[in-house]
C-alpha cells in the first residue's frame, strides 16, 4: 500500500473529471455567476479535493457526488435555457433600485441591499453624484446596470451628426514572432505587404515582433520584443513600504 501513489492517481482522476465536467457545463464567466452558481462551484471543488486526499473512504462515493452535483447544475442550466418562467423562478429577476432618480427603498429592503452597497456600486461605475442616475437595475448576478440622465450621458457621433467610422475586430497577423498566414489571407494581404510594414515600423523581421494586428479599416498595430522607452513608468510603491 502506497499512500503517495494512491493520492497521485486520485489527483489525476479528480483533476480530469473536474475538467471534463466543467467543460460540459459550458462557458460561464465568473463575473456572470449568481451567488448560487458560486456556491455550487465551491461545493464541486470541495468534493474533488476530498476525492483526492481523503484516503479514509473510497474514491468512488466522492466521484459519484462530484458527478451528481455537476449533473444537477447541468439539469438546472438546461431547464433555465428551455423555460423562461423557470429561469426567472430559479435565477430571480433583475430589480429596479433607482427609478426616475428615486431610490426604491422597498425593493432594496426585500433584496437586503443596503444604500452603502448602492453608492459603492455606483462609484464603481464612475458615478459620484446620485443626481446623475435615472435608472439603476440590480441584475441577478449582483451587478448594477445604470442609465444616466440625458444631460450626463456621453456625446455620441450621432448627437454631433458625424458619420461614424466603422470598426472591425483586430486580426492577429504576427503572434509571438510567428506569422499567422491564414489570418493574413483572411484580410487579403500577402507576405510582401507584411514585410514592408515590419520594415516601415523599424523592425528587421517578424521574429522581432511580439504582436501585430490589422483591422478592416486599415489600422495596423505592431509591437516588438524590444521596447524603446526613454523613461518607464513604475506604479509599484513596494520600496516605500519599509
Amino acid at each position: 500500500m502506497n499512500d503517495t501513489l494512491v493520492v497521485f492517481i486520485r489527483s489525476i482522476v479528480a483533476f480530469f473529471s473536474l475538467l471534463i465536467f466543467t467543460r460540459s457545463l459550458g462557458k460561464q464567466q465568473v463575473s456572470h455567476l449568481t451567488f448560487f452558481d458560486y456556491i455550487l462551484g465551491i461545493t464541486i471543488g470541495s468534493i474533488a479535493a476530498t476525492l483526492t486526499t481523503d484516503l479514509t473512504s473510497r474514491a468512488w462515493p466522492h466521484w459519484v457526488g462530484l458527478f451528481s452535483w455537476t449533473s444537477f447544475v447541468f439539469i438546472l442550466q438546461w431547464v433555465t435555457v428551455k423555460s423562461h418562467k423557470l429561469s426567472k423562478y430559479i435565477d430571480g429577476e433583475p430589480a429596479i433600485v433607482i427609478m426616475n432618480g428615486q431610490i426604491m427603498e422597498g425593493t432594496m429592503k426585500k433584496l437586503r441591499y443596503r444604500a452603502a452597497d448602492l453608492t459603492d456600486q455606483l462609484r464603481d461605475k464612475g458615478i459620484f453624484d446620485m443626481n446623475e442616475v435615472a435608472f439603476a437595475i440590480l441584475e441577478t448576478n449582483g451587478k448594477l446596470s445604470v442609465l444616466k440622465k440625458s444631460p450626463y450621458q456621453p456625446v455620441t457621433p450621432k448627437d454631433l451628426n458625424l458619420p461614424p467610422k466603422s470598426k472591425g475586430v483586430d486580426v492577429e497577423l504576427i503572434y509571438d514572432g510567428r506569422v499567422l498566414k491564414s489570418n493574413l489571407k483572411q484580410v487579403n494581404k500577402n507576405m510582401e505587404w507584411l514585410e514592408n510594414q515590419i520594415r516601415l515600423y523599424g523592425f528587421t523581421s517578424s521574429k522581432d515582433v511580439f504582436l501585430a494586428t490589422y483591422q478592416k479599416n486599415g489600422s495596423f498595430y505592431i509591437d516588438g520584443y524590444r521596447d524603446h522607452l526613454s523613461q518607464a513608468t513604475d506604479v509599484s510603491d513596494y520600496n516605500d513600504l519599509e
Partner: protein
Amino acid sequence: MKGLGFIFIPVFLIGIFILSMTTGILLKKPFLGHDDVLHHVHVLKEDVRNEQWDKAEDHLIKAKKAWKTVSKRIQFSSEREEMRLISRIFVRIHGFIEAREKGSILAEIAEIEYLWDELGR
C-alpha cells in the same frame, strides 16, 4: 473526426476512471493461485480449530503474502482504513498463535471474513 475525438477522449477517460474506482470487488478475487486470501484464512481457521499451531503459522504466512499481493491491486478502489485493519489483524493473529489463544484467533478471523466481504463494495 475532430468532433469524434472531442467526445471519445472524455468518455474514454471517464470510463477508465470508473473502472479504476469500482473494480476492487473483482480484483480482490484470486488470479495467480497463491493470492487466494480467503482460502488461506479458511485453512488457517481449521488449523486453529484442530490446534495445529505449526501449520497455522505456515498458513498465516501464506495468507499474509496473498494479502500483500491483493492489497496492491485493490489500493485504488478500497478504503485505506479497512485495508490497514486487515494488515493489523494478521499481526495480532501472529501474536495469538504464539500465545495459543484459540478463541482470540477465531474472533480475529471472523473479523477478517467480515472485512473481506465489505472490501471494495
